[in-house]
């Protein structure tokens, strides 16, 4: 999933692809303006009026989660590395059990608009909200950069745009669309965009999976055998070890990645605030159950897509899939099962899957921008700066200005960040979420003694440790693929910081709690528990 310049897609019908891209833009803009007329209050803007059903929000959560990195990246990794490409998706799925069992319903009952609301319920407002807002923004920006860098190369690739100037233009256009969605549509518009995208993605994936399976008479063993043979790697293609764990450092690096994937999801702010869009905790639970079903089936299908691409499309050196680092595996497979290059069926399927990928990018960047803007307006402006005395109107104005500002910053950062590896940025976002956010959320819910200093220690400790370890890892310096290939300050051997930074975040929470003499937060623990478990006094849906 490298973002370096890739070979453009020379095949397919470019006019058709562009027409479908424009259709996606038109539909999503229509949804946005419809939603902007429906949105009146802060609850509408931040939480979509809490009026989405469990199924609707389940689709939206899935839409937020199945980013271009997982749609194109995982099938591409399977196409190139076989079995090892499948490992990402397992961590991504199992992670939902943490959200289901420990976080979703309790958060829905005890919070309001942002992740910080939940922590701030029994803590001192200013330090906890500032820490939570900083970590929300850092995680969201890493994730946002991954999506925007991906958008630049991907849309360029799918439309056959090669020049760096035009690629930058694509990034700017994606950024402008995302600002429009978030500024005008708020959570209501963004959620509907996610729902439309999730339905498109599932339908497209089911169709291509079905067409692949038909070619192999629904015999999985045949599919795997052909993929292994065509990959040129034989048996090894179906076994662990082509991508991860080649030596001892590699094995620990993989373990570190696996931990961040499974513990990161329940600490991702853009996923957490989705649970506020449902009217009750019961609906929040249903939305996670739907998400587990949808995301699980989706990853099972990417297994077929990845091995299907390996079996049916060339993946050797110099092939389009290899030079695109796997990102083109799904679109090219769609073309192949539609009849092949130059056929009408092949061109149509290629254009449809490209449009699905485009819709995916637009929806995910909108969700991330909204999360950051909400945290700036609700946590930093209304509660830290104005001490809870801001009017709803001024808070919403700040949210819209923040969406604009974050969008602009994301565009400016994404243009030079095109050298960075997308998978690395996503993995870093997960590592920070698992190290900084998850310890604070879990301690707050389940440890009475936990207090303000514990919360700020775990958030800052986990965040700083994760970022420091990556800075001194081979990702940044010491190897030819590093960000600074000529420098050598890579004293931490692992590319993934989770193995150290996650336990460190948990440890900081304990240390901070024990050295503080604060008792107020423990006095409110019973109140928070009752609220979280029963939903007594929880925020209600808006009735228009």
């Amino acid at each position, binding site marked *: 999933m490298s973002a370096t310049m890739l070979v453009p897609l020379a095949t397919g019908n470019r006019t058709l692809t562009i027409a479908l891209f424009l259709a996606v833009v038109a539909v999503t803009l229509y949804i946005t303006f419809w939603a902007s007329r429906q949105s009146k209050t802060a609850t509408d803007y931040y939480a979509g009026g809490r009026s989405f059903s469990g199924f609707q929000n389940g689709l939206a959560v899935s839409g937020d989660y199945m980013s271009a990195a997982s749609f194109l990246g995982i099938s591409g990794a399977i196409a190139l590395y076989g079995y090892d490409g499948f490992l990402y998706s397992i961590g991504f799925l199992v992670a939902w059990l943490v959200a289901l069992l420990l976080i979703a319903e309790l958060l829905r009952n005890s919070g309001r608009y942002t992740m910080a609301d939940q922590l701030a319920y029994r803590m001192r407002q200013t330090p906890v909200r500032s820490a939570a807002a900083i970590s929300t923004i850092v995680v969201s920006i890493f994730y946002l950069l991954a999506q925007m860098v991906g958008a630049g190369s991907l849309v360029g690739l799918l439309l056959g745009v090669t020049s760096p100037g035009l690629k930058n233009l694509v990034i700017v256009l994606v950024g402008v669309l995302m600002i429009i969605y978030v500024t005008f549509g708020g959570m209501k518009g963004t959620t509907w965009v996610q729902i439309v995208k999730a339905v498109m993605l599932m339908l497209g994936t089911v169709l291509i999976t079905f067409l692949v399976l038909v070619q192999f008479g629904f015999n999985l063993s045949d599919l795997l055998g052909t993929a292994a043979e065509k990959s040129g790697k034989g048996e090894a293609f179906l076994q662990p*070890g082509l991508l991860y764990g080649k030596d001892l450092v590699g094995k620990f690096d993989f373990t570190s990645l696996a931990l961040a994937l499974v513990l990161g999801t329940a600490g991702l702010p853009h996923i957490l605030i989705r649970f506020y869009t449902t009217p009750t905790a019961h609906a929040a639970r249903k939305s996670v159950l739907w998400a587990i079903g949808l995301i699980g089936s989706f990853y099972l299908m990417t297994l077929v897509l990845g091995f299907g691409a390996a079996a049916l499309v060339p993946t050797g050196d110099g092939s389009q899939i290899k030079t695109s680092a796997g990102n083109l595996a799904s679109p090219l497979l769609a073309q192949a099962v539609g009849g092949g290059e130059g056929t009408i069926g092949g061109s149509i399927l290629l254009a449809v899957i490209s449009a699905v990928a485009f819709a995916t990018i637009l929806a995910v960047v909108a969700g991330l921008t909204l999360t950051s803007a909400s945290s700036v307006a609700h946590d930093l402006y209304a509660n830290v700066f104005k001490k809870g005395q801001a009017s709803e109107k001024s808070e919403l104005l700040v949210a819209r200005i923040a969406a604009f500002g974050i969008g602009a910053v994301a565009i400016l950062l994404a243009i030079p960040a095109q050298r960075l590896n997308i998978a690395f940025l996503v993995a870093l976002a997960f590592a920070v979420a698992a190290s900084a956010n998850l310890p604070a959320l879990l301690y707050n819910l389940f440890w009475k003694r936990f207090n303000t200093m514990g919360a700020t220690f775990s958030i800052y400790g986990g965040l700083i440790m994760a970022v420091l370890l990556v800075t001194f890892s081979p990702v940044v310096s010491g190897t030819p693929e590093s960000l600074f290939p000529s420098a050598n300050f890579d004293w931490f051997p692992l590319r993934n910081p989770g193995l150290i930074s996650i336990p460190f975040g948990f440890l900081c929470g304990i240390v901070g709690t024990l050295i503080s003499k604060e008792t107020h937060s423990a006095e409110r623990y019973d109140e928070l528990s009752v609220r979280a478990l029963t939903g007594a006094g929880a925020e209600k849906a808006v009735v228009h």
Partner: protein
Amino acid sequence: MADRSTPAYGSGEADRLPAHDHEVYNTIAQESDFVELNRRYRNFAFPATIAFMSWYILYIVCNNWARDFMDTKVVGNINVALVFGLLQFVSTFAIAYFYARHARKSLDPLASKLRDEFDRETGR
């Protein structure tokens, strides 16, 4: 209203609640129904979390350090590694299903009873 002498707390959402709400919350926290709800929730959620995390970590460890075992063929071209991976999907779906059933049968009735009590006591 909240006590203005402690502005660091006084701006929080919980501080804007009427004092009576705090009393009701604390009363409910001591009731046997709530203690039972909390116990039922934790007795499911904590062991289940330990179980799926151990099962997942075992899978990761086998990928790293039990390669011969993982490479064993089960049927046709399908090996232990793939079956183990697919079993992670099965266990995830199963735990989600059992939690949903447990919540519906054992947690929801108690939670809604206590919620009604809160609404009645606070006049909502």
